[in-house]
């Protein structure tokens, strides 16, 4: 499949890395020769220099023979114009545009039709959505939903003194008294696929598959208190803060936003009459304390500077804030960041590129394709959701009789009338079931049949 990526910024190069590794024919467009040169040296891609919203450049990038155009430059208008032109030059092309301005979000559906855009993506919007889900369901570092909300994969850190410390997985069910599956463990930055004799240790980060009901039991039995957040403090008044505040206010949570730009403060105060907007420097401990950091239920750091977000979150941790969420733009230092007590880490850019990769995979293989893909364990593993259909092999055969590839785990099977089950050797899947697979990110699974040897 031939893909054009317009805009070789952070998202563009992340996509180039991911998609070139999966073997697509990639062409990158950017106005700057310097960044293109770097990408060309790192990944197997072709580079075209120029303005991606001109027909000449698009023609150079062979838009007429391409299947997909992803416009991720930093200007919304250029992205839209680029998709519009590409669609005009090649009506068959699929287009994805990154549009971030909140003023445009109201008219997304109209614009999709007018510009012929297949998918519009808003990184700050999806980050806000992700944060909102974490705040509404505290206790987890990360939470991914599958099978229309009937299965979840959550990330937990094993604190010292937890019941899970020094516990072998075979004894797990006795302790937490419900059926869950630990599908991956992240220890010292390396993802491990655990077996029954694996013993959990302090500071491991575990990835648990379970149905929502069982998750509640899990939290209760582990002694993790879940109380509903009532007061949330947001540092930084950017686009993501706006989306998040709007959503939280909608569900009745009090929001306080600290922003150090007067004009911006006035802007969001106009847009969000219910929120408290504080004009002040969020990196100043005095400001944070006087605004009651010790009393709030959740702290979300969304300023534009990663270092500042990290500092504020560390301070919030020392003040004993129960839930902390930190936005990080550059994921290059994720190994170091994960060792710090800064709560959940959210990266709008990687959320955005993951969503696009998901779309590309679905496009490649229309039938039997993955319905949802989430990266877990720092991107070292993938959780993929499939629908079992006519084309799927080995329907109705017990799992223990199948030859399934190494490092592939069938994490859950959901059927229409039965509940979600965590499979054992005798489990079977049938047509219409939704199957969740966890696999090492190194091997690419396009359809459910790829898991068999």
């Amino acid at each position, binding site marked *: 499949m*031939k893909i054009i990526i317009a805009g070789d910024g952070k998202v563009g190069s992340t996509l180039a890395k991911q998609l*070139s*590794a999966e*073997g697509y*024919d*990639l*062409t990158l467009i950017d106005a700057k*020769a310097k960044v293109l040169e770097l*990408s*060309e*040296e*790192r*990944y*197997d*891609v*072709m580079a075209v220099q120029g303005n991606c919203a001109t027909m000449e450049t698009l023609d150079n990038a062979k838009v007429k023979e391409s299947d997909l155009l992803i416009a991720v430059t930093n200007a919304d208008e250029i992205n839209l114009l680029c998709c519009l032109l590409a669609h005009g030059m090649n009506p068959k092309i699929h287009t994805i545009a990154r549009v971030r301005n909140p003023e445009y979000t109201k008219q997304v559906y109209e614009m999709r039709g007018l510009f012929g855009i297949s998918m519009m993506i808003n990184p700050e919007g999806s980050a806000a959505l992700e944060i909102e889900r974490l705040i509404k369901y505290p206790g987890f570092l990360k939470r991914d939903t599958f099978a229309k909300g009937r299965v979840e994969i959550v990330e937990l850190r094993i604190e010292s003194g937890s019941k899970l410390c020094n516990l072998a997985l075979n004894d797990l069910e006795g302790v937490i008294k419900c059926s869950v599956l630990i599908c991956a463990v992240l220890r010292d930055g390396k993802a491990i696929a655990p077996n029954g004799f694996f013993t959990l240790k302090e500071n491991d980060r575990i990835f648990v598959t379970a149905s929502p009901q069982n998750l509640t039991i899990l939290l209760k039995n582990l002694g993790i208190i879940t109380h509903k957040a009532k007061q949330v403090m947001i540092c930084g008044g950017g686009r993501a803060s706006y989306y998040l505040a709007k959503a939280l206010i909608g569900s009745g949570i009090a929001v306080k936003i600290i922003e150090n730009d007067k004009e911006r403060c006035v802007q969001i105060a106009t847009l969000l009459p219910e929120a408290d907007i504080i004009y002040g420097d969020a990196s100043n401990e005095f400001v944070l304390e006087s605004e009651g950091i010790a009393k709030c239920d959740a702290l979300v750091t969304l300023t534009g500077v990663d270092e500042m977000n990290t500092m504020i979150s560390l301070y919030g941790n020392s003040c004993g804030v129960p839930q902390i969420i930190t936005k990080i733009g550059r994921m290059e230092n994720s190994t170091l960041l994960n060792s710090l007590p800064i709560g959940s880490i959210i990266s709008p850019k990687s959320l955005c590129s993951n969503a696009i990769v998901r779309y590309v995979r679905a496009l490649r293989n229309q039938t039997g394709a993955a319905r949802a893909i989430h990266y877990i364990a720092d991107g070292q593993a993938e959780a993929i959701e499939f629908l079992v259909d006519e084309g799927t092999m080995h329907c109705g055969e017990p799992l223990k009789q199948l030859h399934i590839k190494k490092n592939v785990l069938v994490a859950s099977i959901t059927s229409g009338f039965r509940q979600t089950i965590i499979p054992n050797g005798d489990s079977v899947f049938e047509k219409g079931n939704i199957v969740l697979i966890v696999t090492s990110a190194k091997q690419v699974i396009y359809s459910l049949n790829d898991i068999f040897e």
Partner: protein
Amino acid sequence: MNYKMMGKFISKILLVEAVFMLPALLISVFHNETKSVAGFVWSILITLLLAGILMVLCSHSSKSFYAREGLVCVGMSWIVMSLLGSLPFFISGEIPDFMDALFETVSGFTTTGATILGEVEAMSRGCLYWRSFTHWLGGMGVLVFVLAIASGGDSKSGFTMHLLRAESPGPKVGKLVPKMKTTAEILYAIYILLTVLDIFFLLLGKMPLFDAVCTAFGTAGTGGFGIKNDSIAGYSPYLQNVCTIFMLLFGVNFSCYYMLLIRQFRSVWKDEELRFYLGAVLASILVIACNIRGLYATLEETVRHAAFQVASIVTTTGFATTDFDLWPSLSKMILLALMLVGASAGSTGGGFKFARLLLIFKSIRRNIRQVLQPQKIQVVRVNGQPVDEKILENTNAYLAIYVIIIVVSCILVAVDGFSMMTNLSAVIACFNNIGPGFEAVGATCSFAGFGYFSKLVLIIDMLAGRLEIFPILILFSGAAWRHR
């Protein structure tokens, strides 16, 4: 420095080389040449053994592989490949001296065509085939071949760009299509197609199959090893003309052929380098034909010899139909100038390349205009596209280092006491991968007279010329080998 990854890559190249020795072995077996059979069998075994050892030693390599490793890898692969490629000549006893065997092989792989053999026809068929085949393999580049067949992981990361850049010559090397593997495949497909066409036309002129294949290999790689003592002179005028045309075709940038394939005729027609190259060739033929009139019996013969020699020199092939050392000095001077320029960028030919000369001319023109109108901002354009200042800088630096290497090599080679013209033309002929020079290294003579030291200098020159200097030069730089 990721030595293990390099070792793994080199082991792959050795495997490819061992496989390519098999046809030569079969030819030796077919002609009952016992000594060559032994030579090839041992060479294949040694190559395979070395590849196996490297593969086992370097099995657990980390993936970190960057520009530095890429460049060092290119230089190392060519040296290792040449060392093992010379084994058949040495073991079979066809070339008893190892330095001579190495010179002959490097001359083959770098598509130089300079020989130390006086009596080519005395050589066994198997060795003759291998000698010509090294041209074919070296012409497009063995690393490009490995890229074309390498499966999976390696070709997907960006460092392979450095491998392509190092092997396919020119100031700015780009991919034809987004994927490196596909680019390499397209290049080889065009190369194989043109070679087969060449063989076909040679066979039409009643050339024996073995001669046709070997001559086509020499032409395709723009190498110039003949299998006769008098190179191409003994063949019919038709065959000589076929060679002239195909030499010129292989001296054209291969991306022009790709443009033809995807029907972008206009961009080929408008290509400035192609026009420059063809213009220079036609002008040289015309001037030389006028200059040497009277030396040959008919006008047809005069033009044929002029065209053949011009094509042979400008594409850095080095075949000969006549001893051009006997021509008047104007013609010789033109040939010497063509030797320095070489063929087009992105072709199989060597030399400074027309594309670079074009850039140099254009930047000189800009400098002159700059003096007259200092305020005017001027951008150098080729084919209507602005050229990056960095490329201009690199081209100027390349010119400087190109001249320095020629001067230093001339001084080093001079220890053997040959005449000025001999030394200069020998260095130019090796550095630009041409083959024959003038006087003592002329078309009818060989490089056998040089001493060990001079041969070593010329070997390094040939490799540096083929890989466009830097991959060989950085092997001498301490920074390349230091641990990160």
